[in-house]
């Protein structure tokens, strides 16, 4: 899928993510709708107060899996461009670990593709987060 490369922007970084950068990448004159998913660090999980999250990634494979998901979404939903940015390192409450931006001539495809991308990212991309509580820490989803 060499052709799709210009339509996909993948970023895995320790820096703060930029919503305007994602928006700018996916804008195109043929586009009528853009859908963004912005993940934010919640202050609680199952009623317990979270202090912060610590994300790590198996970087080369995380990038290749994110690229695969974006390519699948382009083909499956016929959308125009996809930006998928993920941050790693320690994130405080309210900070943004992930942004997925998708543009499309018609909005329904952009909504569906955006949900597909975030759902699949959470299932297959080798990134892990540790929830840090006042009294300890837990790798999310590691155990049943």
């Amino acid at each position: 899928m060499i052709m799709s490369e210009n339509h996909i922007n993948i970023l895995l970084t320790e820096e703060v993510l930029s919503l305007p950068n994602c928006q700018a990448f996916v804008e195109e004159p043929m586009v009528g709708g853009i859908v963004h998913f912005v993940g934010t660090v919640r202050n609680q999980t199952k009623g317990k107060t979270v202090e912060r999250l610590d994300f790590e990634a198996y970087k080369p494979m995380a990038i290749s899996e994110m690229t695969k998901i974006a390519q699948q979404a382009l083909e499956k939903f016929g959308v125009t461009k996809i930006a998928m940015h993920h941050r790693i390192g320690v994130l405080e409450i309210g900070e943004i670990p992930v942004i997925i931006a998708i543009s499309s001539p018609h909005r329904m495809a952009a909504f569906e593709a955006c949900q597909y991308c975030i759902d699949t990212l959470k299932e297959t991309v080798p990134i892990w987060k540790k929830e840090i509580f006042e009294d300890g820490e837990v790798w999310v989803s590691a155990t049943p």
Partner: protein
Amino acid sequence: MKVKVLCFGITRDILGAFENTIELPEGANVLDLKNQLMQTYSDFHKLSSLQIAVNEEYGDDKQILTEKDEVVLIPPVSGG
């Protein structure tokens, strides 16, 4: 043979290090590695799942390992 195994997330806590060398019989596959880890470290039984990546791709149980492969333990992911 000696296979270098990289550990992320909770698997690093279980093995105690990011980079580990695991002794496996010549011709061992992904399932053999999983079984040996389960026997050596009982904490692996607590995990919801364990996948093995070989050279940056998810490997299936029958994939044969060699000393040159980059083998990575992938516990349940939680990105996003």
